[in-house]
């Protein structure tokens, strides 16, 4: 019996973007494997391709060349629909700017991925998740009625709600002040540990990165070093 495939694997992934006349190589022939349960931090200066790499890993974007594998399955050629269905219950996201749905209350935001994944007793699960991030009492509020830290905690609850195997976080503390950011990070690390999820976290904060199992440094779209 062969060993289980890595949770996430990138093989020779390149992403080029056109910028006027020029062609910009944002991600350049990256090879990367993340094992199940691993916590990987992606570091690098602005414009080094961190967020693009994350988008490629999640199937939110398509590579110009190379292959992206989730649990050994190639996803770069899947249709939008197949990608969407693939994400359900397996992938969770946390964004720098929260990206909560303004139309929906906090509870409804958390509920959405659970229902899409077709989990049993979704309402209880959603309430439980909100309680886990300390916002049990704020479920009926709309995002606009919440502070930045609270919004990001709702986003965390939403990301973990469907018990995803892989969590992708794009500078989740970038828009928050130091104390609030630390709180949110603490929550993220704890929830991940409790649920044994794989976490790929993009940051440029070395202190945040220090909590990870492994770190890669990006520069000009290439992995410069690992630690």
């Amino acid at each position, binding site marked *: 019996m062969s060993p289980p495939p890595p949770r996430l694997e990138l093989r020779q992934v390149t992403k080029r973007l056109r910028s006027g006349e020029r062609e910009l190589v944002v991600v350049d022939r990256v090879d990367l494997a993340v094992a199940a349960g691993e916590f990987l931090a992606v570091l690098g200066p602005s414009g080094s391709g961190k967020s693009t790499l994350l988008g490629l890993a999640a199937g939110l974007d398509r590579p110009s060349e190379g292959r992206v594998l989730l649990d050994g399955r190639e996803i770069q050629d899947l249709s939008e*629909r197949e990608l969407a269905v693939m994400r359900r219950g397996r992938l969770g996201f946390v964004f720098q700017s929260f990206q909560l749905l303004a139309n929906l209350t906090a509870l409804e935001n958390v509920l959405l991925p659970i229902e899409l994944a077709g989990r049993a007793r979704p309402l209880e699960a959603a309430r439980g998740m909100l309680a886990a991030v300390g916002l049990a009492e704020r479920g009926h509020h709309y995002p606009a009625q919440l502070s930045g830290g609270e919004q990001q905690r709702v986003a965390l609850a939403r990301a973990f709600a469907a018990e995803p195997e892989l969590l992708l976080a794009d500078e989740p503390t970038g828009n928050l002040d130091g104390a609030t950011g630390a709180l949110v990070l603490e929550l993220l690390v704890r929830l991940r540990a409790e649920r044994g999820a794989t976490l790929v976290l993009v940051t440029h904060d070395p202190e945040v990165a220090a909590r990870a199992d492994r770190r890669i440094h990006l520069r000009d779209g290439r992995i410069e070093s690992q630690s």
Partner: protein
Amino acid sequence: MNARAFARQLARESRGARGRLAFFALCLGAGVAGVVAVAGFSAALREGLASEARRLLAGDLRVEGLRPLPEPAARVLAAESGARVASVRELATVVAAPPTSAGAGRSRLVELRAVEGDFPFYGRLTLDPERPLAELLAGDGAVAAPELLSGLGLAVGDSISVGGRPFRLRGVVHAEPDRLGSAFALGPRLYLSGASLDATGLDRLGSRVEHRTLVGLPGDASAARAQELAARVKAALPDPDFHRVETAAQGQPELRRGVDRTERFLGLAALLSLLVGGVGVAQTVRAWLASRLEAIAVWKTLGARPGEIAALYLTQVALLAAAGATAGALAGLALQRALPPLLAGLLPDLPLPAFQPAALARGLALGLGVALLFATPPLAAALRVPAARVLRRDAEPLPLPRAATAALGLALAAGVAAVAALQAGSLAYGTAFAAGLAATAALLAGAARGLIALARRLPRLGLPVPLRWGVAALGRPGAGTLAHVVALGLGALVLVGMATVERNLVRRLDAELPADAPTAFLIDIQPSQWETVRAEIEAAGATRTDSVPVVMARFASIDGRSVRELAASASREEGRRRWALTREQRLTWLERLADDNRVVAGALWSDPERFEVSVEEEFARDLGIRVGSTLVLDVQGVPVELAVTSLRSVRWETFGINFFLVAEPGALDRAPQMRIAAVRLPPGGEQRLRDALAASHPNVTLFAIRDVLEKVVAVLERVGLGIRFVGGFTVVAGAAILAGAVAAGAARRAREVAIGKAIGMTRAQVAALFAAEYGLAGGAGGLIGAVAGTVLAAAVLERGFEIDWRFEPALLAAAAAATALLAILAGLAASLRPLAERPIEALRHE
């Protein structure tokens, strides 16, 4: 900021929104084009009507009476510079064919007309041969209608005896501009010269001769000049009771009403399309400013004063509006040129509208006004965005202070009232329109608030995901549901109002189309001849035959007051009343009324004790007759008392045989009578029947009215086509603008699509939730708007067009469903790109 920096900013601000801004200009342009085109078209229609009315009067002014024109009045006319005068005398007399070897020639009652001067001034006398009338009538010449020739068995060149003197038939008159075929003609027409009439001695003192003086004013004379001359002639008449003075503009109320209706309809269409353009403008500006909120916040953090920002955006709006209105005005001018040829035949010789700088200016002003009016509320709201928006994207604009909201609402209402008043030419109408619109908008806003409250309270967690999101989207703070529902509702109001008015107007026109109308009238049928005449009518292939007995009578008294007394008490202005009182009346009797008659007061044949009569309502009003009145009629020397037990309305336009007075069967049985008949014959049947009757019943005269009928049918069909065209155009343009307005708002939703996809929703699911949201807002707005549109249409139809309207619940439901569907389709169409886009695209823009 100096002027140059301002101009640079102006250009920069439009970047990235040029498509949207072009749409803004387009919305406005469509409305302005309608206003300008309608103004020109109305003017052309009015001009066409004036010339048609002159044609039907055969002059600009007519003085008629049973006495010759008195000298002082004649002097007024003679002194009028450039005026031409013709005099016409008419009387009924019996003419005869010369005796033949078989005995005396046939004789016939004719309407004899003697003409001096250049008759007619307008319109054309159709003569065969095509020579001037005066030339044909010179010496002992006479010109006769074809009915007379066939009735007497004569041909051009034969001799005819009038008043015992022989005249020579020199031609045939086929059509006269001032005579429409009628069941009530006394007989066929015969023309003589004035000198010939004098020679016959028929115009002796005491004989009943109708004297008409026709006046033709110089070609460029206005209706006002004719009016003014009429007043002077009236003043110069020593005893005005003996003469009626009529101008072309006063005559032809039927035609006038038709044109009024068309004009009003077109005006309404223009106003509504301007309004729907305004809604499009408001929604476009809203969507455009929503995408500029960050920019406005940044402006504020950089130290721009609110006044400067307002000036920047207002100038932008004004420039765009000017461009849109100008383009619209030019399109309107082009449309003006295109419409009359399209509607040629509506009125003969419909003139091309002249270039009207006033209409152009009005279109431009209305366009600018509407744009600024509708752009101000979203602009005022956008300017309240807190500078903190640079830090927190979802910092929504602060609500306006109550006073400011109220002031904006008032300004908007006043502006709409001004626009409507300017367009309708009536302040009362404008105010009523604006009030109705404000009430509708308030109702819509209230309903939207209710919908929002409901969406918040509804336990939506049990709903399927797309529907839940749709409901949630309606209820969230700052969702713009209010503006959305109001815009959709106003749009639905316009569409339903327009469609309802158009449908009812077209239905009425179709009903007025005399599809089954008679093509010929037969008069002077003796009761004993009716059976054999009817057999000949059927042999000629008649598809419809109506015949009634006719009794001639005069009023003797009304409610105990003698007619002489009543006529004497009628004031100078009541010439029409005096005329109705003293002239000879025609009566018939009927068991049941025809379909084109409707009892509006009292009940038909409801008094078993007395002989009854049913009176046409307007005739009754003129003479002061009510249900319960008693009429005494002098039936050729015998007084007959009749009780008025009902009043009727009559649709005269059906061309059927109708009477002001209809008696109960039995009341007039023994009175001297004859029959008239209205028959519908196949083409060519009129001539065949006329020839057959000439041989078997020479006393019966047949008037063919096929030509008139076909002309009327053609005109009505054209009017119907025009109304369908304009109505359809307004509805389609309105729907397009509305769809654009929805789309303008929907383009902001790219981010939601991206998030939905990121957490695992398929495209179809995202589309479904959008559909739910837009469908709910569209359905609610559509239903309220449709109800308001129906109310508007009912008011317009009943007040403006005097047409009974029919309530159509199916139309309401269809309108609500269609609005919902339109909102869904437009919303989805606008979301197509984000739906197809990779989620990262939208998320990257954050």
